[in-house]
């Protein structure tokens, strides 16, 4: 029966790790115990982690703290593959800035965490390392593209991970696995040393930590901020929040998200009002149009083909996971059909940006459900078109975007709330997230 199917068997879940901020040996123990079931860590670095810990600076802010590194960040001493078969032995010439910053802060890397092929889909699966499962229900996805990161953090295999996010890739897995995920804006925190390349001029790409608590996320950001934050936005204070809830398009399994979130925010002492603009349907189409118009910039190098006629044979030769093939084909076709008018795309995008900037300028943050659906069953994420709508709003705005756990769905799977603010609101968003957590 459906209800039975929705409740995972006790043996089919691993659940949360016992400690929200495990030490190295604890993390390695959990890794050894559970990763064959989860598939979160695609490359284990146990010995290297132990050596790093003994060499490390004991007074550094993250001294000895174990972290996972999403398999998109360049590292000289391990392969960075983005889960792509053709780049299985790709070794970068230099460490990415974030890896250097984390090591300088004393943290030790326990392994590379799994991603969706080319970090392109909301389901963590690739032809190189396989599938990452959700620790709360092994029949469901951990999400993507930072699925390995979220699963590893949730199950106690590391204290935190550092992900990347150009369409919800930190926040969706965080939501599905019940952890905290933060997206930092690209116009103040540069994304460098990331594979695959994401065109920076669209302002969609971001990065940030995943951890079990908001305090943990804040600790990681504080440790690397001076190194990564190349531009300071004017700090902004906020007087209240606008809650954007789902419409018929994005209702999913949480149609009352707006009222649930409003109640919680009011209980936390925040001034709240409910808004309807921008509509989730508009967000979905604006994001899809923007990606479709620029699909060559994202995927042309991997497909080796930039014409529509050549896309299918190109995809076949590219040896991409079927989920990624589907996404690329959809974008390529939509870019030549439904979303072919670039000027119209920019009008959609700028209307959304203008509406939200007006809220920010009025002293308001934005709260939404991170997603209105629980972690889908393995292989079914692509069917949920409403899945990433609210997360994508954060990318369109190049916003500070924080996903925090917020109860559970009827199935028992984690649920999540998202806070959005402009680049200068990082401290305000984190402070509010901590209040909500309390």
């Amino acid at each position, binding site marked *: 029966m459906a209800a039975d199917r929705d409740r995972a068997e006790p043996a089919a879940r691993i659940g949360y790790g016992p400690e929200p901020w495990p030490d190295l040996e604890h993390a390695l123990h959990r890794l050894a115990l559970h990763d064959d079931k989860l598939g979160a860590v695609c490359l284990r670095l146990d010995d290297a982690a132990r050596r790093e810990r003994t060499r490390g600076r004991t007074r550094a802010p993250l001294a000895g703290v174990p972290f996972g590194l999403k398999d998109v960040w*360049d590292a000289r001493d391990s392969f960075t593959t983005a889960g792509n078969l053709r780049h299985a032995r790709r070794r*970068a*010439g*230099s*460490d*990415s*800035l974030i890896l*250097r910053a984390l090591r300088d802060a004393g943290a030790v890397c326990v392994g590379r965490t799994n991603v969706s092929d080319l970090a392109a889909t909301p389901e963590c699966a690739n032809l190189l390392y396989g599938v990452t499962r959700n620790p709360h229900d092994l029949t469901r996805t951990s999400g993507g593209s930072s699925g390995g990161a979220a699963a590893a953090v949730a199950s106690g295999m590391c204290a935190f991970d550092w992900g990347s996010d150009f369409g919800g890739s930190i926040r969706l897995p965080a939501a599905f696995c019940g952890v905290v995920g933060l997206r930092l804006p690209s*116009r103040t925190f*540069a994304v*460098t*040393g990331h594979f695959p390349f994401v065109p*920076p*001029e669209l302002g969609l790409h971001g990065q940030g930590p995943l951890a079990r608590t908001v305090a943990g996320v804040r600790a990681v950001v504080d440790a690397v901020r*001076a*190194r*990564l*934050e*190349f*531009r*300071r936005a*004017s700090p902004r204070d906020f007087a209240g929040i606008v809650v954007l809830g789902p419409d018929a398009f994005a209702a999913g399994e949480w149609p009352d998200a707006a009222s649930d979130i409003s109640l919680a925010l009011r209980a936390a002492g925040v001034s709240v009002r409910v808004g309807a603009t921008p509509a989730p349907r508009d967000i979905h189409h604006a994001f899809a149009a923007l990606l479709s118009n620029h699909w060559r910039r994202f995927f042309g190098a991997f497909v080796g083909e930039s014409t529509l006629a050549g896309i299918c044979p190109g995809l076949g030769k590219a040896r991409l996971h079927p989920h990624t093939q589907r996404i690329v084909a959809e974008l390529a076709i939509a870019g030549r059909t439904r979303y072919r008018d670039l000027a119209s795309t*920019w009008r959609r995008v*700028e209307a959304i*940006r203008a509406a939200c*900037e007006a809220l920010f300028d009025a002293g308001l943050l934005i709260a939404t459900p991170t997603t209105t659906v629980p972690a889908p069953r393995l292989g079914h994420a692509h069917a949920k078109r409403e899945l990433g709508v609210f997360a994508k709003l954060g990318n369109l705005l190049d916003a500070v975007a924080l996903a925090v756990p917020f109860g559970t769905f009827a199935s028992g799977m984690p649920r999540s709330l998202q806070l959005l603010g402009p680049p200068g609101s990082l401290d305000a968003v984190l402070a509010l997230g901590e209040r909500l957590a309390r």
Partner: protein
Amino acid sequence: MPTYVGLACTVHDPALAVVDAAGEVVFAEGTERRSQNKRAHQRPPDDAIEIGRVLDRYVDLDDEIVLATSWERRRWKSVAARAAYLAAEPRISALLRPVMVGQTNAFDLVGLNLRYRLHERRPSTAGPEMRGFDHHWTHAATACFSSPFDEALCAVIDANGERSSTAFFEYRRGHLRRLDPEPRRSFRRNGSLGAFYAGLCFACGFDPVAGEEWKVMGLAPYGERDPGRYREFREWFQVDGLTLRADNFALLAAFDAMRRRPSPDAMELKDLARTGQEVFEDVASELLCNLAARGASRNLVLAGGCALNSSFNGKILNRTPFESLHVFAAPADDGNAIGAALLAFQQDHPTWQPPARVMSPYLGSQIDSEALSRLQKLGGLTHALPPGDSAMRYAAQLLADGKIVAVMQGRAEFGPRALGHRSILADPRSASVKDRLNAEVKFRERFRPFAPSILADHVDEWFESAQPSPYMERTLRFRAERREQVPGVVHVDGTGRLQTVSAELSPSFHQLISRFHELTGVPLVLNTSFNVMGKPIVHSVEDAVAVFFTSGIDALVIEDRVFEKHGR
């Protein structure tokens, strides 16, 4: 053994450098200093009168002399032809014509005065050989040969070379290898960040011909990004690996259309400045990340006129995978005099490898001791130094007492920055000192910030992401807890364009700041160039005295002489 004379012969910022038979740079100076003509537009690097004095002082006339120019002779005809074509282009002829026609003339004039003065001194000897080098190669040579690296990746980002506006090199054990393919396209299609920034400067109501791009940098932190403008500007550029494409004519025409009359209140355009600065940084960062992806080195050497963008330079190590950065004191076209001379030297000495060290920037003229004696004897000024005290220590005391002190020491700096040898100094602890300097000494806009010179050993205590900045080439953010201690040098966004002062490179300046540190507990001073707005940094004792008496400077220190105004 030959002596090599490098001639930077771009129409603006001409300069001359001398490299001796051992490969040492013994002299380098911009024409603007000697002529006291800002940027010395359309003047040859070998000034008709001054070149004789340079030859007498730095060149052994018994030696063979090799002249080296910063543009390639065999391409001069095509550059000149292109210059003529561009000058005739109706949309932007008014913008580019003076530069392009002037450049054509510059190629014709370079070396003529030097040949005449050489012939005057040794009439029976054949004239010197002249060699031309690719413009971007001379940029790369200046930057890499002056760096502390044995190996590095080098990015030249410029307004215009013979063919392209960017060039990328690998530098290894003294030798350069170009990495990017030389474009076949014209100036029109090769994306030029230098042209972009000059256009932005023009649109903001400033004067790029006078080199006022740094006013844009100073204004930008006051503004916010305009999303629509950002997208418009950003879409002009396409970055494809190490190739930058743009329609330079279209972007210059767009900036021309945006141009407003010079406004008494530049703040009206702060958002435009901010947006343009962000686009510049984002495009340049993308190019540098693509360069870093080559994996050949973690050291970056940056050159070209765009390397004067200190605001961007301070962010490079936070935005790219590079771990170290070197930007020479004169990264723009004046610096090419050194690169040209050293490339000529290397041609004759193929195994030569420059020493890996930070090259001293103090390569210019010495102070004329006779002029100084005349000033002391005939100027009617009282030498104010207390007996038993040194001029630098006394100057530090004057600073601590709130005085504005102009300093002239040793050899002049090469390049646009004053690095303690031709500087006006003040106490950074004062919040009002900025306004006083802008109103009474520099006579410039109020939004212009002032720069700190800090003891190299103390950088980490005062700045985030501490990095060496010996040539004042980087802007970094002050640590939050330090900003209120030195409001005179903290810009509106919490940054400062710092010079890190070491005893090895500048012992006298280091002594002054050390004494100031002893007196006040603050290891940095406010350092601005010894000039007034619109004029180059002072060159002679006479220039220094003129500025001293026509501005609000309280004391003048020349070598070991101290002169104070009374009644201030």
